């Protein structure tokens, strides 16, 4: 888990890594880009960094509200608005186009929300319907604009594919203002948004206007999308709204931390992506930014502590190994119980007590031996050491106590308790063992006899 001042270091660290990586692999115009000497480069880098931050900020909340893919519908839904505004205004004035896009995007979000209320139309279908039908209408309007020769189509295509390199000062200002607007709203309504994301029903019971909050949240997404369109294009703005938030989620369970991380991830992707694409010819900035975010995502998914896949896998593996070792020890304890202490058990017979693969069992035995729990002689006869015996007896005792408990208090048939106890014995803490002893009135050290017939391994 990441918390505290460490968070402040994430962005500089990521940016440094990005810059070093760019510098290492070299680029055509590397030095000029890295020094940010060029005015245009400064504008582009500033614009994409702010966009990444803004999208990461609002994306956190849509992600947690499980509305991530609504951004997909919304981004596509802006097209008819932009095209219609283009047809009406008749020139590539940026503000009317953005207003048109925002109106159509809002309409799209409302349609998704309305369609979802209809029986048999689920969230996914509602999103798909809105995005395809709205986009279809947009294409018709767009082709109308082209056929009326009202100007080159590139003006509108710019919104679909985005032209990062063409960002001008005005665009950067717009993105900056959006980021500030979102920041202010989130600061003001942080508590409300938190409630909405984690327990909407509770928010409603507290008298919060859930629908108004939802709409407000979606309105912020609409604004981010619309100003992001011309920077990175339609599909990639969706990515910026989803990926940084999803990546941040791996590192923390705390909303404020996650929000902050998501902003940093978004900003770092924007910064480094624009830098890389500026250093090489022929690299579309929007796509590179998204790939940077993707790298962050997969890194987080793999290596975040606790939620990351690698550590989770390692923890599962360690647990399996521990359970396997305990099974070996218990099998030996049961053998000793039957044939007296110091009885040795041949490996072949041990293997028959469970569905062990030979290689798996051998590994387990070597691990036990390394922990000085058993000895194995050259002819594969196994015997518990004093240390191992203490542990094995404790395990066997836990197993039997649980079996007795199940029989006495849970009405489980004696023939069925072995398996249940088998699963629980590894995780019984000492406090529960004491409780079991009290309930079953068992002595502190004795191992109760097995309540069911023991299968003999021959």
């Amino acid at each position, binding site marked *: 888990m990441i918390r505290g001042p460490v968070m402040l270091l994430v962005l500089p660290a990521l940016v440094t890594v990005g810059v070093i990586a760019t510098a290492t692999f070299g680029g055509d115009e590397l030095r000029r880009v890295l020094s940010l000497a060029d005015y245009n480069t400064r504008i582009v880098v500033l614009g994409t960094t702010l966009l990444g931050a803004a999208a990461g900020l609002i994306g956190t909340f849509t992600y947690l509200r499980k509305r991530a893919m609504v951004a997909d519908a919304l981004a596509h839904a802006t097209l008819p608005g932009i095209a219609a505004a283009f047809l009406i205004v008749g020139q590539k004035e940026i503000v009317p186009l953005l207003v048109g896009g925002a109106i159509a995007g809002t309409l799209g979000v409302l349609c998704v929300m309305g369609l979802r209320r209809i029986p048999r139309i689920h969230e996914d279908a509602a999103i798909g319907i809105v995005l395809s039908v709205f986009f279809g209408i947009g294409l018709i309007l767009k082709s109308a604009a082209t*056929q*009326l020769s009202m100007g080159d189509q590139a003006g509108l295509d710019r919104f679909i594919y985005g032209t990062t390199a063409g960002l001008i000062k005005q665009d950067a200002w717009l993105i900056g203002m959006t980021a500030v607007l979102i920041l202010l709203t989130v600061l003001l309504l942080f508590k409300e948004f938190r409630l909405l994301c984690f327990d909407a029903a509770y928010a409603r019971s507290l008298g919060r206007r859930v629908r108004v909050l939802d709409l407000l949240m979606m309105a912020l997404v609409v604004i981010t999308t619309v100003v992001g369109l011309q920077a990175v294009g339609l599909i990639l703005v969706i990515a910026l709204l989803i990926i940084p938030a999803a990546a941040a989620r791996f590192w923390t369970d705390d909303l404020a931390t996650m929000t902050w991380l998501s902003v940093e991830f978004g900003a770092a992707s924007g910064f480094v992506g624009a830098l890389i694409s500026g250093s090489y010819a022929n690299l579309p900035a929007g796509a590179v930014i998204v790939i940077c975010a993707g790298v962050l995502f997969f890194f987080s998914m793999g290596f975040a502590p606790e939620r990351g896949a690698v550590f989770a896998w390692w923890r599962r593996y360690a647990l399996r190994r521990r359970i396997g070792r305990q099974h070996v020890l218990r099998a030996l304890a049961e053998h000793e119980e039957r044939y007296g202490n110091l009885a040795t058990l041949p490996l072949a017979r041990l293997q028959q007590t469970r569905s062990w693969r030979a290689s798996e069992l051998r590994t387990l035995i070597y691990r036990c031996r390394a922990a000085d729990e058993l000895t194995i002689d050259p002819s594969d006869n196994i015997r518990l050491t004093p240390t191992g015996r203490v542990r094995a007896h404790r395990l066997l005792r836990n197993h039997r106590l649980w079996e007795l408990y199940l029989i006495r208090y849970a009405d489980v048939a004696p023939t069925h308790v072995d398996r249940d106890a088998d699963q629980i014995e590894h995780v019984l803490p000492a406090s529960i063992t004491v409780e079991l002893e009290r309930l079953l009135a068992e002595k502190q050290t004795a191992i109760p006899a097995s309540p069911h017939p023991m299968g003999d391994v021959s």
Partner: protein
Amino acid sequence: MTWSWQGDGTVILVAMLAGCACALVGSYLVLRRMSLMGDAISHAVLPGLVIAFLITHSRGIGAMLIGAVVVGILTALLTQMVARYGKVEEGAAMGVVFTILFAIGLVLIRRATDHVDLDPSCVLYGNIAHIYADAFHGTPVALKNLAIVFALNLVFVVAFYKELKVSAFDPGLSSTLGINANLMHYALMILVALTAVVSFEAVGSILVIAMLIVPPVTAYLLTDRLGIMLLLSVVFSGLAAVMSHLAVIAFPVWFNTPIQPDTSAMMTVFAGLFLAVAIVVAPRRGLASQAWQHMALRLQIRREDILGILYRFQEHLGDETAAAMPTEELRRIFGHGPLTSYALRSLRRRRLTVKIGGSSLALTEKGLHRAERLIRSHRLWETYVAQHSDLPLDHLHEPAERVEHFIGPRLETALREEVADPQADPHGRSIPSGHPEKND
């Protein structure tokens, strides 16, 4: 524009084949709540197409298909992986995966522009106008390919009807029946990728996404049977193709403009229109039908409430013979709206009430019977609630008022047994006798 069978006929056929092929596999996507997989795959195949092109240096359909199928499967796999190992919600996982793949595709395209003539907008919009032109030089390749894909989808859907059905509705059951739901899932994904790629060139990815989702949802609103749903979704796709092309031809004439919209874009609009109509008129689930049911229920409740008032009035007067209540008084109680007027009229038409002295209303014998049943339900429920909960006396009326309309003969008998057949309700008013079975 004049109609030409060769040109327009081919365009319609191409649009129909693409739409129907999509609708067949899309039905299962909708049922499995994975509609957006179509969206994700149609965007994500971009890098597959570019890599296939870079390797083979040709735009041959074979290489494109292989590239698309590989990336299509990769999309499905990665989505599943991110959702499972990263515990990311399925929709968001899809969003993460397809946008990254799309971005990789864009980078590849740009890096390869020197020796590639591949335009991402071709994938997005398709080029159905080319089909029109090509049709005059023999059968267009797109038509042949689409026919093959449609046939493939049809054979798959028919041959694995049972397997697909079980794995779509109940993956758990399908495993116990020995049907590998996962295998079905990936087979479906392969077909979605194939269909998408073959349709791209002709009609564009937006139409693919629309046809994968919209006609199946329309059909799903109209029927409960899978077979009929498949059939309807294919019919709607076909119809959308025909009507959209006719509309495209008619457009310049009707609106007197030189603008001629694109058939495939128009087709998504028509599919959307069909859906809008279905949402309104669908039997049982449609908005109209639901509004009608709601209205009918409100009317019934209003009628019963009027009968109840008349009964209580009569009871209050202690008069067994018809005691009339002024209509104006009833209107004052129930409001002057059309619902009350209609309820009053329909009560008279059903001979449950009778007009006395021009402006007063009384129960007929039949009406009395009906009112007794209602009051019995009301008071039995009050008694039951009083016996089984700690509600104070003055809080019993409200719940009974709501529930009285929904107590049928069987529930009434059960209630009567439960409260040991009392003569009076908790307020001391008598519970009308009578045998519920005898009533209509």
